[in-house]
């Protein structure tokens, strides 16, 4: 007998429909799966056999052929265990019902028949929200993410026996609903705060500007000066994610299987800090069946690269294109996928191998050649994409022990929100949102200089030897500073502050 079950797979970040067809015929018993399955799916034969037997059903001693249609799309993951098992039960008349036709069934099976969580439950729930058939039977552990989607009815499946009884009408399973807005609010709380950081006021100011204009930042300072601490608190001053952004980010995390099980939705901006031994594929995403990498996991959030020169050179260079396009396209034999990668890059590094080059108290023992070699790991084009360079100096005793009220993250965030609002209004007809993405053509239109500002910039170019590249960056950053100031034209103070954020460019990279 033939049975057809609707299921889904997630190549990339959007689900596509897969029909699981099972034919059971007489003849020499065998069990085969066709339709470009990967190893995990081929192995599912053994899981399904045990799961069916251990759930109290008979496994047919027949010729079983499973087809995963469309046959030309490569399928991966163990999510087809449950639909295949259900299809076998239907084909052997164990389930005498048509009810299964209304559901999209996904789930991995354990040998005892328990349904285990799958990757990508959220994209599945999202892609079928507009479809006519919008009931999904999803593993119990994935219900949090799937239940967020209002238009989709998500039914939790705990084990194969229960699913069979449910489809036979003997047991009632209720679709679970979660109020996304409430969950969103609950999850968006963060423990970290900028007021935890003592001193470093100019760095905080720099990060505020970076957050306002979505500029990429480079923090340079001796060890222990608080670079990582500051960077970790950057997400707390970025304006809150809206629900669409949150869904985008959660989708990527769902595909990677990284959604926290009880949470279901990522509401706080992600902060990813991969170790510097990371490979290029782990950063950009990759694999035979491409998986999202760190830059995609940091989508709508912050990617923090600590000890930037320690990263392998090719790893750093692969980030250049996604930093421009805000997406990453991965091409493999299995197919070409595009993952979103709109993130703020925050990099931290020491000024030299020993770390004390800019430290007034400790002597640096590196030779100029060593420093040169260390710094040359960061290529011009990459440096080009880091708009703001901040020097994070060592704190002295007074600064460390001073008990003064510092600004909290929410105070800074208010200003950031205002500046971002101004940009959104200004660029509503453009294809981008923030100052960081201004091209030279648009710079002319949006960065009108006052006479004083013009003078200052001229002087900077002549005296400080600013390059054309640096000129553009200064204008962009000055634009953001003016937005924080709620000023239309760029004034001298904005320009001078912006020039300050390029100084390291000259001091270190000559």
């Amino acid at each position, binding site marked *: 007998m033939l049975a057809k079950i609707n299921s889904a797979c997630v190549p990339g970040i959007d689900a596509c429909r897969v029909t699981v067809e099972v034919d059971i*015929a*007489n*003849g*020499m*018993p065998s069990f*085969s799966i066709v339709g470009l399955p990967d190893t995990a799916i081929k192995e599912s034969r053994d899981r399904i056999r045990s799961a069916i037997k251990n759930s109290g059903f008979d496994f047919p*001693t027949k010729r079983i052929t499973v087809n995963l249609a469309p046959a030309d799309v490569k399928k991966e993951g163990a999510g087809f265990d449950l639909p295949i098992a259900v299809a076998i039960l239907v084909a052997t008349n164990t389930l005498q019902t048509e009810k299964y036709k209304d559901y999209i069934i996904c789930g991995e099976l354990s040998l005892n028949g328990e349904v285990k969580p799958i990757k990508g439950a959220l994209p599945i729930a999202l892609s079928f929200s507009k479809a006519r058939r919008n009931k999904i039977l999803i593993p119990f552990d994935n219900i949090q993410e799937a239940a967020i989607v209002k238009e989709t009815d998500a039914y939790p499946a705990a084990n194969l026996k229960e699913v069979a009884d449910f489809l036979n009408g003997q047991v009632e399973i209720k679709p679970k609903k979660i109020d996304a807005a409430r969950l969103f609010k609950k999850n968006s709380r963060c423990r970290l705060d900028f007021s935890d950081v003592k001193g470093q006021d100019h760095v905080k100011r720099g990060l505020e500007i970076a957050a306002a204009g979505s500029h990429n930042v480079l923090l340079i300072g001796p060890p222990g000066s608080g670079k990582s601490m500051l960077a970790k608190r950057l997400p707390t001053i970025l304006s809150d994610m809206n629900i669409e952004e949150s869904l985008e980010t959660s989708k990527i995390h769902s595909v990677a299987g990284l959604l926290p099980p009880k949470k279901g939705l990522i509401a706080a901006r992600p902060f990813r800090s991969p170790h510097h031994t990371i490979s290029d594929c782990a950063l950009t995403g990759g694999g035979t069946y491409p998986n999202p990498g760190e830059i995609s996991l940091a989508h709508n959030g912050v990617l923090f690269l600590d000890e930037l020169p320690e990263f392998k050179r090719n790893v750093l260079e692969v980030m250049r294109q996604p930093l421009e396009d805000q997406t990453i396209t991965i091409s493999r034999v299995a197919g070409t996928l595009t993952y979103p990668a709109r993130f703020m890059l925050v990099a931290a590094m020491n000024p030299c191998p020993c770390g004390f080059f800019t430290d007034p108290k400790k002597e640096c023992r590196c030779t100029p050649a060593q420093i040169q070699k260390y710094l040359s790991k960061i290529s011009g084009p990459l440096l080009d994409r880091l708009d703001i360079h901040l020097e994070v100096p060592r704190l002295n005793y007074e600064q460390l022990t001073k008990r003064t009220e510092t600004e909290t993250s929410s105070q800074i965030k208010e200003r950031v929100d205002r500046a971002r609002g101004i940009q959104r209004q200004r660029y509503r007809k453009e294809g981008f949102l923030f100052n960081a993405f201004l091209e030279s053509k648009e710079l002319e239109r949006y960065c009108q200089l006052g006479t004083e500002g013009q003078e200052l910039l001229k002087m900077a170019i002549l005296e400080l030897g600013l390059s054309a590249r640096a000129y553009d960056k200064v204008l962009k950053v000055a634009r953001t500073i003016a937005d924080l100031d709620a000023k239309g034209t760029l004034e001298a103070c904005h320009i001078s502050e912006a020039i300050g954020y390029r100084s390291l460019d000259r001091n270190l990279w000559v």
Partner: protein
Amino acid sequence: MVLQYRVPDLNQIFMDNKTLGKTGEDLAVRFLKRKGYTIIYRNWRCLLGEIDIVAREKDFIVFIEIKARRSLSFGPGYLAVNHRKQSKLIKLGQAYLKRYGLTESPCRIDVVSIDMPESGADFEIELIKDAFWENRT
């Protein structure tokens, strides 16, 4: 290395492998009949080889491989049905089904494993139903 000699069991000298197989098959047939199998063929042969027993149980045509062992020093009998033997049995089964036009009937392969230390003594007989499947990928 110390070589260990053991005086061979008289039974092992007098009973060659052929007789052992034959005795095993007789035992198995008796056993299967008691289990409700109807024996269709003993030693069904074709160009590919031989099936020890072809039987019918309920709706199933059952191909049965018998493995008799004198001692367990090489492991139990059913372990001797290795991958090569399995694929051979599958081919034989298919040939049988084809010859008698039974390709549409349910069938399976069982293994009977007999452990008989010496003739006349107690022996152990074990039936493994649906022992293995054709391995298509």
